[in-house]
């Protein structure tokens, strides 16, 4: 009984957010959203989701804070090192044949994936011919990504991942540590465009040779996943690469036949046919 009321209240909240603030969460996976909103209820000391709705409709600052709960995403540098190893060993040889490259990291959150790819591209000698598009719906997250600050205690894990991914240099070459944090070298950001973009409501904006979108689509229901993968399809030329998270796959997508497996284990696909 109460579970059904919760469901109704969440749907109403998402409608309200969409109409008032233009953020479209209506296609997000309800199961995950519920947990995140439950945390926000505690934080805002609201008894019900309707009460929370009332608050965010009338108070933009509360909405911004709620948005952080709804979009929170935690990653690591070189998360799933084998994925990056596969990029290095199998995908880079193809990318090397292009005189100029564009890479898109949708749902970049705090930027861990962005820095991982730039470091990899630098190590493989591709950075200077590449433009990286790092996009997210959260402007707070984009700011954090652009700042490139991470807690010092995460560095041992990042370092280990980097090494396992086949990193050629030492990760410490790319950051300086201060006051319990590390700051990634600003030269890493020279070729990155950080930009607001929604997979739920915006269009494709560039032709890119590689899209790395890992663990963002898991928060979408299947219809919204189809929309996002449709954008990826439009943005990739024939033989362009798409990397997904370790447990994401195209087999439940309507666009399945527009892609071929390139590395099935590491969930790397290539655009079939097409332009």
């Amino acid at each position, binding site marked *: 009984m109460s579970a059904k009321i919760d469901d109704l209240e969440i749907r109403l909240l998402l409608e309200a957010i969409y109409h008032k603030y233009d953020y479209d969460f209506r296609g997000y996976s309800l199961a995950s959203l519920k*947990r995140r909103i439950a945390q926000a209820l505690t934080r805002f000391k609201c008894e019900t989701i309707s009460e929370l709705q009332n608050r965010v409709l009338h108070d933009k600052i509360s909405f911004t804070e709620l948005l952080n709960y709804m979009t929170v995403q935690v990653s690591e540098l070189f998360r799933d090192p084998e994925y990056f190893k596969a990029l290095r060993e199998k995908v880079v040889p193809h990318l090397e044949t292009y005189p100029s490259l564009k890479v898109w990291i949708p749902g970049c959150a705090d930027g861990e994936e962005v820095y991982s790819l730039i470091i990899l591209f630098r190590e493989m000698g591709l950075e200077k011919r590449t433009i990286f598009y790092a996009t997210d719906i959260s402007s707070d997250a984009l700011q954090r990504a652009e700042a490139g600050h991470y807690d010092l205690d995460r560095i041992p894990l990042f370092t280990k991942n980097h090494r396992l991914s086949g990193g050629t240099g030492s990760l410490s070459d790319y950051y300086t540590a201060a006051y319990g944090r590390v700051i990634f070298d600003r030269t890493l950001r020279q070729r990155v465009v950080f930009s607001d973009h929604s997979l739920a409501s915006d269009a494709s904006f560039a032709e890119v040779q590689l899209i790395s979108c890992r663990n963002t689509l898991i928060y979408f229901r299947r219809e919204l996943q189809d929309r996002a993968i449709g954008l990826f399809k439009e943005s990739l030329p024939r033989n362009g690469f798409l990397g997904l998270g370790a447990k994401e796959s195209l087999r439940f997508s309507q666009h399945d036949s527009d892609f071929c497996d390139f590395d099935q284990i590491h969930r790397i696909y290539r655009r079939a046919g097409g332009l």
Partner: protein
Amino acid sequence: MQGFRIVAIGASAGGVEVVSEILEGLKPTCQVAILLVIHIPSTRNTRLLQLLRSKSRLPVIEVDDKEQIFSSHVYLAPPDYHILVEDEDSLALSSDLPVNYSRPSIDVLFESAADVFGERLIGVVLTGANRDGASGLSKIISARGIGIVQDPEEAHCRVMPEAAIGNSASALVMSRSQIIEFLNERT
């Protein structure tokens, strides 16, 4: 009463053995889908999958995002992701922060399963050294599902079963052989 559709099982320290035993003991005609969270270091997951496949008479699948739920199948949570029941027919993954220091977390699975399946759900908490599953099991019971806990006396590690019992007075406490018998009778 409607029949059961889902059995959600959570196990932690020492759980691989008892889970294998349960899967081995289930009759192959059982009509439910089994959802499984086992806390285990991610590096050992491939071997875990092989082991469960060798014991279980039902097919064992490591869950991908939006995996479809079929009866008479076993769905194992992948390392480093929570699994959630999205709707009647599919599962979703999340890489949100660990809950009870665990990812996958039993609570996350149980709570989302209770929301969708209510009284058609059986939750089982087995051996373990933390409190994961306790809050999820009480949610299953308040959604009119059935909550089963492995008898702490026979559990490899009694902390998790005791936490679950402490949180849910109406949980059924059973030995592993009673759990197998119960599941075979009801599913």
